[in-house]
């Protein structure tokens, strides 16, 4: 990681930031990155408020399932989602076909800003909704009752009771969504149409791969890191992190005042979000089962890509998990001895990666390795390393609390019984916190399976993964084959996730 950064620094020419600022093209892509991220955030978070509000008031059949679905959009490989969106809103998608029946041309194009916004809202709206819903559900039932006693309903109730609770969480959610959109790579790559809708993230890739302009690539990568770090700091200042609950609490309260308008209002929002999230996913499944399915099964490229994807994801997830556990073992050791400051530092270093876009790390490693060897023969090592690094913050986030608790409870017992190292892990940790460990592994696995930013730079004819293959097929308009890959990726990511959750839940330790 540090090596990657230093390679970037070495490669960027001295007259860096000023020349960057003077170039109208770079100025445009910087502005565009902010602009699209801002719009995406406003749309995602703005729409999430009424939806979360409606969901918090209503109980209906399938609500739990819908919330599960919301959770999957974040682990869904980006290209699969994009494929689903294209097959609905694209030039030959469902809507276009429908309009074609009435001799109506499609009034919009999914390529460019429209598509980028649509995809970002598709991915982030459910995520934001879930987070906001959690904070709404944290309002004690007593307060709802009190509001009813005092005759505070509807708009006033929202303003006096619900809004303050939402407001606490809002900066946090908005900040997270903003960063996610700002650094989005695969979406912009698949849907951005030409230089007009290019983000910094994509410009880094293009500078290296399209123009062989290593200096600009390095410079842009540093610029991107600088902006991301600035953003992260800015967000940290304005929001206190609120602990996220893993599951949505089942606290119910009775809706004391209800009227037709409120019912319609809520129905409208819930219906709208279902209409946004569900059809693309369904389309992936429906169009995936087609005539090409059989021929794809005999396609050697497909198997190679699948093999590579699995291999990379398993390796990356293992490395991320191991590194995460080792980091946490040392940080909790310090924490128990009152060296909180040192522990925080260590965990912070590992989390910096969250704001360092994958493409920046890959670029640095690329430049570093290029000096000494043929980069492309080391490709898979690098891709694994980058994916592992990118998954690390998620591992830390999932495991930090449970690991610390374990140490608090069992450290002295273990010391007195003489249970150390591997045995300790096997008999104590694994039994008690198997579920979060497996969960962390699953997250890392799914993130690596769907990743495009590392492989985009290092991939080649001999070395593809499923997302890269999907991108190539999309590019050459082989929609049917692309549909099959998208389906496989969907099954692989969401399926793995669901399966692992199920397996670990069945056998509580």
């Amino acid at each position, binding site marked *: 990681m540090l090596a990657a950064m230093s390679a970037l620094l070495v490669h960027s020419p001295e007259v860096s930031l000023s020349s960057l600022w003077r170039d*109208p*093209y770079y100025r*445009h*892509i910087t502005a*565009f990155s902010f602009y699209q991220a801002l719009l995406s955030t406003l749309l995602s978070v703005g729409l999430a408020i009424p939806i979360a509000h409606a969901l918090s008031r209503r109980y209906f059949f399938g609500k739990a399932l819908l919330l599960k679905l919301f959770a999957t959009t974040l682990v869904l490989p980006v290209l699969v989602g994009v494929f689903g969106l294209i097959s609905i809103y694209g*030039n*030959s998608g469902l809507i276009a076909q429908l309009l074609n029946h009435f001799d109506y041309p499609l009034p919009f194009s999914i*390529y460019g800003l429209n598509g980028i916004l649509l995809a970002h809202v598709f991915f982030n709206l459910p995520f934001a909704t879930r987070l906001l819903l959690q904070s709404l559900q944290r309002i004690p039932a007593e307060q709802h009752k009190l509001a009813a006693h005092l005759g505070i309903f509807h708009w006033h109730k929202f303003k006096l009771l619900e809004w303050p609770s939402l407001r606490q969480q809002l900066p946090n959610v908005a900040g997270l969504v903003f960063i996610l959109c700002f650094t989005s790579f695969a979406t912009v790559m698949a849907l951005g*149409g*030409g*230089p*007009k809708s290019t983000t910094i993230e994509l410009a880094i890739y*293009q500078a*290296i*791969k*399209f*123009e*062989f302009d290593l200096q600009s690539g390095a410079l842009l990568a540093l610029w991107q890191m600088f902006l991301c770090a600035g953003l992260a700091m800015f967000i940290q200042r304005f929001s206190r992190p609120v602990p996220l609950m893993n599951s949505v609490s089942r606290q119910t309260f009775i809706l004391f005042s209800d009227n037709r308008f409120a019912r319609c209002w809520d129905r409208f929002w819930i219906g709208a979000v279902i209409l946004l999230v569900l059809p693309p996913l369904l389309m992936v499944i429906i169009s995936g089962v087609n005539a090409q399915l059989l021929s794809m099964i005999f396609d050697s490229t497909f198997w190679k890509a699948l093999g590579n994807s699995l291999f990379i994801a398993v390796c990356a997830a293992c490395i991320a998990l191991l590194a995460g556990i080792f980091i946490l073992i040392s940080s909790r050791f310090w924490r128990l001895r009152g060296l909180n400051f040192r522990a925080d530092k260590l965990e912070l270093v590992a989390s910096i990666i969250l704001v360092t876009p994958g493409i920046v790390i890959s670029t640095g490693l690329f430049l570093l390795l*290029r000096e000494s*060897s*043929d*980069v*492309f*023969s*080391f490709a*898979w*090592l690098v891709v694994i390393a980058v994916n592992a690094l990118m998954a690390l913050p998620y591992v830390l986030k999932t495991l930090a609390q449970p690991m610390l608790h374990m140490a608090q409870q069992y450290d002295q017992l273990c010391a007195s019984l003489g249970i150390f190292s591997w045995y300790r892990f096997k008999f104590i940790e694994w039994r008690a916190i198997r579920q979060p460990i497996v969960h962390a592994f699953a997250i890392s696995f799914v993130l690596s399976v769907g990743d495009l930013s590392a492989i985009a730079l290092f991939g*080649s*004819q*001999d070395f593809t993964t499923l997302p890269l293959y999907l991108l190539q097929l999309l*590019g*050459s*308009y082989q929609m049917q084959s692309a549909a099959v890959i998208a389906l496989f990726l969907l099954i692989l990511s969401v399926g793995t996730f669901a399966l692992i959750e199920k397996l670990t839940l069945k056998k509580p330790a």
Partner: protein
Amino acid sequence: MKKILPLIAFSAMISMPVAANKLVVYTYDSFASDWGPGPKIKKAFEAQCKCELEFVSLDDGVSILNRLRLEGKHSKADVLLGLDNNLMAEAKKSGLLVEHNVDTSKVILKGGWSDKMFVPFDYGYFAFVYNKEKLPNPPKSLKELVENKDNIKIIYQDPRTSTPGQGFMLWIKSVYGEQASSAWKQIAKKTVTVTKGWSEAYNMFLKGEADMVLSYTTSPAYHIIAENKHQYVAADFSEGHYAQVEVAVKVKSSVQQKLADQFMDFILSPEFQSVIATGNWMYPVTDVVLPKEFEQLTMPNKSLSFTAQEVADNRRAWIREWQNALVE
């Protein structure tokens, strides 16, 4: 670190070339694809060299050069096939290429061929191809396409990755000169999308996503000969058409210099050249018989070109001009 070393050694081992007698040729995807000239050429060359010929396909011509530059001295490539005359000076600058020993006197290009590093393998003229059943009144000149015809949707390729895209940029530059920037702005209004490579763009056009696509005057021959379809034609522009000579070149770091030399000689042989017209759908560079359908194709009244040096000197500035015009 101790544990990583064997791992690196292992990975280096499995990435070593397995066959001792293998020639690796980097080319663009439509050349290597099943319906391109690649398979026939592979078969013919393997019969005479008793070796294996491997095509590595990349998005388009400029990508081939970029890929080599990214790999640097450790590249696996022995020969690059699919750069063009406009890229020659820039490619030479990389210092990664080496001169050929081919006798190029057979080349029938106007003015012959004297370059010591590159060997031409085909040539053609860029043109916009359209379906005359869908577009009965095509523009008669580049200026008409750019300045009027607001209802026409076009697709072209990215000049940073594709030789046709780069050719279009040079075409615009040679017709518009200093006014190129405002021409690009007018083109932007008609552009469906800018693709990375030629095949992507042409596929999109055939799916009906645009009225015209940047390709070659020779592209309609494919539809006439292979599909017996006559509705696809290349628009004839009165300013003249920008010319392209596609070239091959040897890589300096290659360990298969002998095989590479043999392949470079093979490029100008009748076996190679006779596949070009109906495989790559371009004009061959030696005197081989052309299919009679080629007579139906439009022949540009004037051929436009910059020298390779002019392109190398200005390429980056012109690409920036294109980028900036699109974002404003």
